[in-house]
């Protein structure tokens, strides 16, 4: 049952334009309008980063940009909220392992 919902009794999901992005160098297909976190969940990926002190896996928690649990390195920029960032073609997404440096 994991992944994209095919049929729903109430909702219809508009999935139009496909985009491709890279997660840890692996190509992932998604739909325009999806957030990075959502698209990774559709691909079965729930570990979005490793914490900087204890190296524990961390993932999505609130999905509305409040909790900062889903911070990832996106196009080289650390600490980006993957739940609020939409996927785009060619985007490079990595699990964050450190706190991130000032660029």
């Amino acid at each position, binding site marked *: *049952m*994991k*992944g*994209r*919902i095919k*049929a*729903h*009794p*109430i*909702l219809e*999901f508009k*999935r139009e334009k496909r985009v491709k992005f890279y997660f840890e160098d692996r190509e992932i297909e998604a739909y325009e309008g*999806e*957030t990075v976190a*959502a698209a990774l*969940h*559709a691909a079965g990926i*729930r*570990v*979005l980063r490793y*914490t900087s002190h204890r190296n*524990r*896996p*961390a*993932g*999505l*928690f*609130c*999905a*509305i*940009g*409040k*909790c900062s*649990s889903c911070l990832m390195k996106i196009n080289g920029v650390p600490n980006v909220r993957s*739940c*609020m960032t*939409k996927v785009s073609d060619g985007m490079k997404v990595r699990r964050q392992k450190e706190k991130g440096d000032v660029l």
Partner: protein
Amino acid sequence: MKFYETIVIGSGPAGMVGATILGQHGVKTLLLDENDFIGGQLVKQTHKFFGDHAHYASLRGFEIAQKLQDGISSNSNVEVENAATVMGIYPNNTVTYIQNGKKCKAYGKKLLITTGAMEKQLPFVNSDLPGVYGAGAIQTLMNEYGIMPGSRFMIIGSGNIGLILAYQLIQAGAKVRAIVEALGKIGGYAVHANKIKRLGVPILLNHTIVKAIGDKSVSGAVIAEIDDKFKPITGTERELVVDTIAISVGLTPLTELSEQAGCKVEFIPELGGYVPIRNERMKTTNPDVFIAGDLASIEEATTAMIEGKIASLEMVQELTGKDLEKEIENEITILALFRSGPKSVKIRSGLEKMGIKNLAISKPRINEPKEDIVGKLRAVLECDEEIPCNSCEVSCPFGAIYIGENLNSTPVLDPDKCTGCGTCVNACPGLAIFMLKEDVENRMALVGIPYELLPLPVKGQKMWAMNKNGDYVCDVTVERVVKYPNKTHLVYAKIPIEFSQSVRHFSFIKKESPIICRCEEVTLDEIENTIDSGITDFEELKRLTRVTMGPCGGKNCKLVVLGILSRKTGVSISNLSQGTSRPPVKPVEFSAFLKCGDDK
């Protein structure tokens, strides 16, 4: 810097209604929201809302969002900035926000802050593990993006959000293993709880989660009963095989921006935690700053909309000098009526701490039922709690349902006036109305049930009739399916008359389950159900189901059972204990042991 008369921060129900009214009165308004759409959390709500028709009762959350969005887009005085993340509020009502990677500043003579709330944390061992989500996050993934984050869910907390989430998960095709609730009673509305009970979801009262299990991501949960001091009782721990855990133990207001705007906040747990102090008209301790919605007190969409109205009307009055006293007082009366029921006790006491009294013009009551007419096709109302909703009364074209002045009162049916049209069944947000017609002579009853699941049964479909707890009652054949545009359909089938008050759901017939253990005749279903009940150890599984314990000693089924256990738990067979083999390995006569042969 841009200058506005008002800036509204957050576009949930409170912010949308507020901005609309400000704009309608000619007040130049900037509406800021972090998302690339307006609507807040309403857009991911698929259930019909309670309330009255003035506040869109019976419409689904995303439909209400659409209505409110239309009010804003047709309003030339409201400028909307999406994807605008407010960073902070500085002196003189200066709001800074980031948009397209750039810092922007805006000034408003008055501010309406409607930043809403977020889920409360519940710390337990491994609660930081991927696969543990706030309930709202699952709604976002599932209902906004159509993405299901897991297969088997456990929900912590039986408030309305937890109950609604369970129902929405089942609608989207997931399995909900259990809802655990620390208190001795269900937190949310009974009608929401009944919707999932009849689908077979257990609600475990006086239970808590002890820890989440998993290496990189959740693969199970340990739950336990708790004592009257909320401490887990040793020996009651058991494991649930789930891959996703939802936390819904309440929301807490997001007060940061209001604090920066100079509003005094106080800790009032009845209202959700720290909340800005404000008066009856939603004005905070900073006379330029107003609040509404979940930021003011954790409630629901209707009260958020009314608060947004009150706040914005008062802002218009102060900015323009228009006399809106009558309108404001009217909204305050409507709000007091909404909050006059037993489900709003906490809110009322929290508001009283702030010096705001509830002056409802009438009290809710349990209306006396009218005499039933057995044998007539009519509605059966199973809505016995005083909750703020009158959609059935308003929906009935024949005036057959009465609630009265206070919409928290319980509905009663006048069977004389009821024509059996089913309109109220379709309108009821709680799915708490059914159709019934007894055929006393033939000892049968026709029962009609609201149906919002896939697939929709068809006429002639053989199904199982289930009772209010989700248990099998009898086999049925569907007689009629009435489809409605709002997707709450109505399915009719005949049942023996004795079950007319118990059958409340039709389930598709579960496939026949193959026998796995030939010797002890244990089916796949039985094994899976035992594992689902928390038995993940092979030895325990053997003792409870007797698999592999028959004459063959497990030669036939051991590997199959281990395979099932591995599939359900995610642990590979090589890492599972395969149990102990004991003599005799073949069936032998007991007498053989008494007769000694040659010992070598």
